[in-house]
């Protein structure tokens, strides 16, 4: 391949990038982790959670959508960005109903793992919105507990772009925007357990539930019991 290569820096470390790569992709290739929630390998970028915010030549930007450029000076790890990311993650907790101790995603959940990575142990700064949302368990194999949804849109993109179905979609606007299904309930859609949208890697939290297998991984063997999110080589869990 004759890709054009160029160099830029992340936290003063010089890395190489190919044309067309985002800052995040180049960072991943160089083994530098930038925190993220809505971006996941294999799905198109959406740039909505802003947890991946870095500064590029002094301006804040979402690294999952911002193309890398020659000579760009990117900052990823500094106190200000850390605090910014913390606030974003805290707000996600406060906007939903997250009872980690009784949630089957605990230990495998990217939101929870991100909170640990960012040393958020007590989300107290913002008011709890405590939305009232019911569980949709109508489908024989799948349940949807939107109390835990962080509106990352990964399921929407997976269903549309990969499964070619459109089972999930956004409804409402602004703070009321949430994820709904294309029908009265899940049983009313053409969702199937084999859909990529339903795969465990798609939903980062405990919102899309594959029925009947909750808690079958013992504590100590769950994904983020073994390593802090981002500390394993990116893409290393693809096997």
């Amino acid at each position, binding site marked *: 391949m004759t890709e054009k290569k160029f160099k830029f820096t992340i936290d003063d470390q010089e890395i190489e990038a190919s044309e067309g790569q985002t800052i995040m992709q180049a960072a991943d290739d160089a083994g530098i982790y930038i925190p993220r929630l809505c971006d996941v390998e294999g799905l198109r970028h959406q740039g909505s959670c802003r947890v991946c915010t870095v500064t590029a030549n002094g301006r804040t930007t979402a690294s999952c959508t911002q193309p890398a450029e020659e000579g760009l000076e990117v900052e990823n790890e500094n106190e200000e960005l850390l605090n910014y990311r913390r606030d974003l993650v805290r707000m996600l907790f406060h906007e939903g109903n997250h009872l980690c*101790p009784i949630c089957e995603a605990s230990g495998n959940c990217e939101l929870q793992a991100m909170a640990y990575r960012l040393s958020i142990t007590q989300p107290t700064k913002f008011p709890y919105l405590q939305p009232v949302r019911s*569980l949709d*368990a109508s489908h024989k194999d799948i349940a949807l507990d939107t109390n835990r949804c962080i509106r990352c849109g990964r399921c929407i993109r997976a269903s549309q772009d990969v499964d070619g179905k459109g089972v999930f979609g956004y409804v409402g606007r602004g703070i009321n925007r949430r994820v709904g299904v294309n029908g009265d309930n899940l049983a009313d859609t053409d969702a199937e357990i084999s859909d990529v949208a339903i795969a465990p890697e798609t939903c980062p939290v405990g919102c899309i539930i594959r029925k009947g297998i909750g*808690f*079958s991984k*013992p*504590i100590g063997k769950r994904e983020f019991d073994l390593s802090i999110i981002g500390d394993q080589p990116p893409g290393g869990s693809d096997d």
Partner: protein
Amino acid sequence: MAKRKIIEISPVTRVEGHGKVTIHLDEDNNVHEARLHIVEFRGFERFIQGRLLWEIPVIVQRLCGICPVSHHLAAAKAMDQIVGAHQLTPTAEKMRRLMHYGQVMQSHVLHFFHLCSPDLLFGFGSPVENRNIFGIINEFPELATQAVMMRKFGQTVIRMTAGKKIHGTGAIPGGINKNLSIEERDILLGDIDQMLEWAQGALKLAKDYTLDNLELVNEFGTFPSSHMSLVREDGTLDLYHGNMRALDAMGEAIFDQVDYRKYHKYLVEDVRSWSYMKFPFIKDLGTLDGWYRVGPLARMNTASRIDTPLANSAHRELKSVSGGEPNQTTLANHWARMIEVVHCVEKIKELLHDPELQGDDLIVKGDRQEEGIGVIEAPRGNLIHHYKVDENDQVQFCNLIVSTTHNNEGMNRAVASVAKKYISGQQKITEGMLNHVEVAVRAYDPCLSCATHALGQMPLVVELYDVEGTLLDQGSQCL
């Protein structure tokens, strides 16, 4: 009408709810009536409606910070039925038993050493400054160390079976999510003989206390009652699984070998206006006579034998004190509890030598059922979990009968009996007198003893009212 005063002993607790004792005095300062009120967690039964069946064993253990494993396992047993797992794999059943024995052991040890040993070693009326776990640490440091190490061992067993020492996830519908590794087994085996030695020491302490104070034990909160627990088909004690047996005050069977999935055909729950907690009774005997006691002493009364040698001979010795008839005291619960600690340690040792704990066959499932009832002998006594789950896997109905509820009438009787004896006719109510009442409640180890309680920091409000409701006196102390 005689003018009455009301004394309230009102401890404030956390998770398990809130308990208070009211003692009604007449104008001669005689105890007219004494009652134990416990605000119960009925809210949980509603809270879990609509939740998914496999979440339930993890959710319901939050009912209690001291014996969460009991709720975890009772719910898992109910969910086994719902997923059609009528017989677990040997590894799953043995892992769950190991978890349960670790739990009963650590709960009993906590209760005996932290909560009760100060009363037993210093006396019920001894100065309150010393009558707590810190007094024990000062005067009996080796006991305090043993208590800590034994609890730690029990918690390690729980951690190795449930994943965490508190609020783990081990039991899942149809089985268990892990086995015991060789490394884990060897860690436990390394301490087991020491545990057995200390458990026997604790048993001796509780037994000697009972026998040395037999006169007090026989008159302190002693009254005839029925007793109920699970036993095996041959009548052997079994803390994890069995059929229901209830014996009357003379030791005659009221019912025996009842499949616990039919509990509601034998037990009915009565409601009384002054208490949030229900009063279960044995249907055939009616509301007035149908009440019964559960817990360690009830189990010693109902069980014909114990299947581990040390606990079995201790059981025979305890039974001989009441001439083979049911032991009707309140305080012999401590002795019974320590027999169970020895039994649990013996069972743990037996299990650790069983290679099936290293098996990989962990889960079974079968034909789906709508209803599941899980019953277990929790540290404090029989525990019933009953659920109905719809075709979408969502819980539609939940009924829980916890040990403290089974013991409701018994505890009320114990409080009344002790209050009449120690408070009637007294001009001034001292802390020591009130503590006698608490000792009676505490012997049943009701679920209102939370972690704060264990450290002797539970505030207790005592209020004295006359018949018009005017506050005459008030004070507070730590339970």
